[in-house]
């Protein structure tokens, strides 16, 4: 049974590698956020699997729960960025205008 869990852990890591492709190469920033979210969900599951391999699941469930919570916060935070800046591309500042402090510099 332990071998089965290790094998499924390795398979999950392989899937993560594939999801990492989206995180790294985009093409848009929102695809990256999606990739990170997928990696987060897979990690939550993998944490419990590792706990089962160690045969001490009771110690690992708390981490997985905290993990799921923080993953949620990160995703919400990242998506809220686009409530203020309407641009997908990195150039420009979107809807917001930043006024420089001294007023003399503008690019």
């Amino acid at each position: 049974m332990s071998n089965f869990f290790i094998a499924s852990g390795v398979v999950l890591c392989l899937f993560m590698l594939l999801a990492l492709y989206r995180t790294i190469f985009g093409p848009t920033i929102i695809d990256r956020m999606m990739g990170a979210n997928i990696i987060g969900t897979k990690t939550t599951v993998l944490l419990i699997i590792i706990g089962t391999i160690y045969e001490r699941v009771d110690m690992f469930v708390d981490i997985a729960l905290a993990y799921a919570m923080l993953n949620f916060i990160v995703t919400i935070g990242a998506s809220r960025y686009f409530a203020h800046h309407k641009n997908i591309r990195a150039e420009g500042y979107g809807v917001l205008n930043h006024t420089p402090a001294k007023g003399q510099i503008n690019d």
Partner: protein
Amino acid sequence: MINTLTIALMIAGLFFFLATTVGVLRFPDFYTRMHAAGKGDTLSSLLILVGLALYNLHLLSAGNILVTIKILFILMFIFLASPTATHAIIDAGYESGIKPWANENNREGQDDLAD
């Protein structure tokens, strides 16, 4: 018995994770990819976690039942949070003006959004 059930549930979960990953890699635009990711991820983590929660019950004791309940808590949380996160990401994409994919005949300038 419980072992067989666990293995079956986990293989089903891994299959849906595979489907999610293929969908995320192969679908043409952001909305379709997010569709695959949001649904597949929730379902497959649900299946795997139920499998592990069952496996945890092969020795019945108060501690193990508590752990199973905790795993079900995680499940409930994922069930709440994952669709909300999907909604937030999709909304962010929609607000920032990504056009949905259309086939070749009426495709109009969306490749230029890629950075």
